[in-house]
């Protein structure tokens, strides 16, 4: 029953993902024969330090959600290691037997995208926020109620509301309920999958501020999954950009936005509409479409759409290499290209 012994984690790291792969089989016909594989996540490695926010960004189908679900073991990875430091002990989440999963999930909780479908309409706030405590057998009824009151206060909701049902709350308030539920067990890692994309603009800022504030107060570590680069820039210390199942670039936030080193990151940054009519820019518009993860291009997955592509890009997949301090890029031409970024603080 002991988890497989694994290599030591770096002191500062809470989570380290090594060579993670998740393939989904494509089955056809009467016998459901496997005719192909969707390589949703294809050899992804990264780490998250204690107390920091790492964002996984990318367009739909890039594997960012699949990666986050593997980390929570909502999906069992095809191969690879997911190392989580647990009170000095290092566990491989990918290998932990099912019976130990529950205790493991106390450490990692999730905030969902849609505050309307992620709360049970037949449960009161007390039941919703108290459920993780009940599941993990924490305290007695009175202690659990006290904890719920504390959590609701923490996320800026009035505890008097705890006998109400979710329908009585607006989208932003519901997202606060979801956050209270995720934090009830005092997790160390919080995985937030698009937590603000379903909210109105004026409410988005409130929830982002709340997440930042809670991180400060409780020393939380966030793995933030998002497609909106403006939100990502606002909340994270480091960013990992994914394209068709692979990480193409990872760097500290400022560095990634100011001087991207991968052509896909450059195009992605340039495609974001800037809220200033005086900056109507000559955008880089990518041709074609995101590659199909069931039928990936040879070599670098991005080469058919890349304006800097050369012969080698078609033949060989580039490895993730460190081009400057903490800045990793997988591009054959990373060292020779000068790419356009986005300046901070420009008005």
């Amino acid at each position, binding site marked *: 029953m002991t988890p497989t012994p694994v290599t030591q984690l770096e002191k500062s790291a809470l989570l380290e993902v090594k060579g993670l792969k998740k393939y989904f089989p494509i089955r056809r016909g009467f016998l459901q024969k496997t005719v192909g594989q969707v390589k949703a996540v294809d050899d992804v490695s990264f780490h998250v330090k204690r107390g920091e926010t790492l964002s996984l960004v990318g367009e739909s189908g890039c594997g960012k959600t699949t990666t986050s679900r593997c980390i929570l073991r909502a999906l069992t990875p095809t191969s690879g290691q997911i190392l989580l430091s647990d009170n000095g002990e290092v566990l491989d989440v990918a290998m932990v037997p099912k019976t130990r999963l529950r205790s493991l999930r106390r450490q990692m909780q999730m905030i969902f995208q849609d505050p309307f479908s992620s709360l049970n309409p037949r449960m009161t706030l007390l039941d919703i926020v108290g459920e993780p405590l009940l599941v993990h057998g924490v305290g007695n009824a009175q202690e659990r109620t006290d904890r719920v009151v504390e959590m609701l206060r923490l996320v800026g909701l009035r505890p008097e509301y705890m006998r109400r049902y979710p329908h009585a709350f607006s989208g932003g308030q519901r997202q606060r309920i979801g956050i209270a539920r995720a934090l009830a067990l005092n997790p160390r890692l919080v995985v937030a999958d698009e937590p603000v994309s379903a909210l109105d603009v004026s409410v988005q800022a409130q929830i982002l501020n709340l997440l930042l504030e809670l991180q400060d107060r409780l020393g939380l570590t966030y793995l933030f999954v998002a497609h909106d680069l403006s939100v990502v*820039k*606002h909340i994270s210390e480091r960013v990992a950009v994914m394209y068709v199942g692979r990480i193409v670039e990872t760097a500290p936030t400022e560095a990634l936005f100011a001087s991207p080193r991968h052509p896909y990151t450059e195009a992605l940054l340039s495609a974001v509409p800037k809220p200033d009519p005086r900056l109507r820019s000559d955008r880089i518009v990518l041709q074609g479409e995101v590659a199909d993860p069931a039928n990936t291009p040879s070599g670098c997955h991005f080469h058919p759409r890349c304006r800097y592509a050369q012969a080698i890009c078609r033949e060989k997949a580039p490895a993730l290499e460190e081009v400057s301090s903490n800045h990793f890029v997988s591009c054959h031409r990373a060292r020779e290209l000068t790419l356009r970024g986005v300046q901070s603080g420009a008005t």
Partner: protein
Amino acid sequence: MKETKPLLSVRNLRTSFFQDEGTTKAVDGASFDVAPGKTLAIVGESGCGKSVTAQSILRIVDRPGRIVDGEIVLTRADGSQTDLVKLEANGAEMRSIRGGEIGLVFQEPMTSFSPVHTIGAQLMEAIRLHNDVSKQEARRRGIEALRSVGIPKPERRIDEYSFELSGGLRQRAMIAVALSCDPRLLIADEPTTALDVTTQAQILDLLRALQRERGMAIMLITHNLGVVAEMADDVVVMYLGRVVERGSVDAIFHDPKHPYTKALLQSIPSIQSVPKEKLPTISGSIPHPFNRPKGCPFHPRCVSAMPGRCDAADPSLREIGEGRQASCFLYS
């Protein structure tokens, strides 16, 4: 400036939904103009009435909603003017305008196509409804329309079903249907919201190129201020069914007047902002349409609200400068 007649002029439009629980004033006195060949953006958050405004213009408001008051004047190709509110919603004239002179692009490219008909069948239906042409001619025009929106191999794509296309291609096909009858006004309701950023950039570029080629006006409905800044000439900001501010895109972004516009612009995380900095927020949330605040609908969330004034009376939209209008007591 105002020599040319606006293509579309909406005055004091009110559209309400009459339900058992009460009446929802989805649009409550909206007024604005769309200039020919220009892009007007209508911005607002959910529940501000931007989509119902578009539905009112096309006369496709679902029951129990109906237009209670106001006029929507369309300047026709021959220079005559027609008030769309006075037309029969399903009458011959309205049907020829809808999809003919005014084209529509919806948000959800997945659900706005029929899954049991080919793209071609739906495209040809629109063409033959508005033009007296043979099937072969309609098909030829359909292929041309698909080519003009940048769909590769249109001869083959025209016989495919909507589920065989990717999100970006589906939205292009949707635009092809809307443009197949050469509209003079294209209403695009959140045309890129369901798309990824790189695909969004492609679609926005396409809309701009088509506008340049054909000189059509675009009424762009969106909540994304980045898209507005990229696309619009003029901007209308709506909140709870009312127009709170109108002006040129530069004026709205660089010199906003209404407290709601100011707060909205400050609260969006920008790709140019400094990481990990606290954002200014608008307190509270959008009220439920049944509990509309008395007076100015924004006053409970407004930092400049004047007690006794903003919660008592309703500010009307008034001129506050060259081509600028705002509905706020700060400017009266």
